């Protein structure tokens, strides 16, 4: 009897430990996704309109570049840290003096720092920077959005470089099976899919960029809303068929992992969220065209698929963002040597 109870206790303790561990994992995962692009925006694959220089021929000069140290910052979720590391390491490899200030919190804290120059470089997101950073409404047209952001940042002495083609935007996803059975590829197609439910975070219900917009702009009267704030639960509910459409971020590796399909055609309600590096203007002027050219050549390679892949390496394979950045730069021969 005693032995029996002992083994029970041991089992219970193990179970408890396991629960604690999973809780930690869930917590950080949730945080990461919820900050990823707090706003709600989209557009086409802004493919062609950004690239200036192709990847290979970066200015790989070995010697140090003279000028003020550039503090590279990031938000506190893995994708932002990976992006910051990519730019930081590439700049370092080209002799720029780099300091890091990663994993920072919200834009309310970061924007004053980049205005003052305490932060020199930040990988931003087009629509969220406008909507959350400046509290303005983000245009859904990519060119217009970029102009708006350039003007807004110009007002506080910050230079906006070329956006990357890759976007971390809100997407409505369905399972692969649902997409093929109902021939659904765009949000408009959902009208013919019978009574279906969209799950998103609670704020989605009333937003023009989310549920309210889908119903009004695309006339989806057959779409109900269920509030599921926790990301893992939303994915599980979609997978099981309890809900048919879920709001996720376009760069969440779970989309490729689970074979989900991100629906197209949301340009009317969701603003573009291209990755866009912003630089304190004093730093930008101190280094001139050469810095901008180097950064733009890297940005041109960062597509949504690249972001999915990089996030997957961190979130699914548990690699650390610094190493993932180094590997990717090496794969693309951007570290010189």
């Amino acid at each position: 009897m005693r032995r029996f109870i002992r083994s029970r206790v041991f089992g219970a303790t193990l179970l408890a430990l396991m629960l604690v561990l999973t809780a930690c994992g869930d917590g950080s995962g949730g945080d990461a996704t919820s900050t990823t692009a707090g706003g709600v925006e989209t557009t086409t694959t802004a493919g062609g309109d950004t690239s200036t220089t192709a990847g290979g021929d970066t200015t790989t000069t070995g010697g140090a570049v003279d000028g003020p140290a550039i503090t590279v910052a990031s938000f506190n979720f893995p994708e932002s840290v990976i992006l910051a590391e990519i730019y930081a390491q590439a700049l370092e490899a080209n002799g720029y003096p780099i300091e890091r200030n990663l994993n920072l919190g919200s834009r309310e804290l970061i924007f004053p720092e980049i205005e003052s120059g305490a932060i020199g470089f930040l990988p931003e997101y087009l629509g969220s920077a406008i909507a959350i950073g400046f509290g303005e409404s983000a245009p859904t047209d990519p060119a217009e959005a970029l102009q708006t952001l350039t003007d807004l940042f110009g007002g506080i002495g910050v230079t906006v470089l070329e956006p990357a083609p890759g976007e971390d935007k809100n997407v409505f996803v369905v399972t692969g099976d649902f997409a093929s059975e109902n021939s659904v590829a765009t949000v408009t197609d959902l009208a013919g899919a019978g009574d279906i439910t969209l799950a998103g975070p609670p704020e989605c219900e009333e937003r023009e960029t989310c549920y309210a917009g889908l119903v009004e702009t695309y006339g989806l009267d057959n779409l109900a809303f269920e509030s599921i704030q926790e990301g893992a639960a939303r994915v599980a509910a979609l997978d099981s068929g309890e809900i048919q459409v879920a709001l996720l971020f376009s760069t969440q590796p779970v989309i490729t992992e689970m074979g989900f399909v991100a629906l197209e055609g949301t340009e009317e309600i969701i603003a573009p969220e291209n990755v866009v590096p912003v630089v304190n203007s004093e730093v930008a002027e101190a280094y001139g065209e050469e810095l901008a050219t180097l950064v733009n050549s890297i940005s041109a390679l960062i597509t949504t698929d690249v972001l999915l892949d990089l996030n997957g390496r961190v979130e699914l394979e548990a690699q650390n963002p610094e190493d993932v950045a180094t590997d990717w730069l090496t794969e693309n021969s951007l570290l010189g040597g």
Partner: protein
Amino acid sequence: MEFLSEVAAWFTEPGRWIGEDGILPRTLEHLWLAILPMVIAVTLALPSAVWLAHRRKGEFLANAIVNVGRAVPSFGLLVLAAVFFARAGISLRFWPAVVTLVALAIPPIFTNAYTAIVTVPPETVEAARGVGFRENEVLWGIEVPVGLPVVLAGIRISFIQVLATVPLAAVLSSGGGLGQYVVRGFAQGPAGLVELFSGALLIALLTVGADWAFSIGERAVLPEGVKRLALEDVKAGASVSLQEG
């Protein structure tokens, strides 16, 4: 002041009390999400605790349940249950929360019941045996009535915890009782502050009200003699919840 008048306006909005998302249906949902797990937890924990304590067995088990109960984070368990239930094709509205709340409710019920029986004065128990009480009579005639205040205190602590944890369920679905107001208000940022505050206020009122109702019920249930005993003799390890006889 302006904030309070906004809160007042929130409470008096048309359809705020009845309607699908109204306060009354939300309160009923909240109570149901708390009472069902409590019934399950009491059914599971109470008989086993009383029996084990009477036989003076399972101290390890009692300790383990307290420690595990303290260590398990409800939120983690909830999400784990949600993923599990979703895989099984069961709606996220109800059962993940019930399972989580049962797990949260069991430790105080079990340990208080165990402690209650174990700490009945041995001279009382021996005296009962001395005058010829059978084992069953010792348990039901002496140990359970004398330990009852502590047993009930455990159930009450548990119920209050469960009521206060039901709102977590709102992160999983459009349910979660009054918690839905809090989660939705929080998600809206500054614009949702009034809803967040109102929801929190309602949950606090419900919890305090339930505690008060429970204490009245407790007084009605306890035998007179035990009430007096509980007053003069606060036993170790248990939070006795009787204020007066």
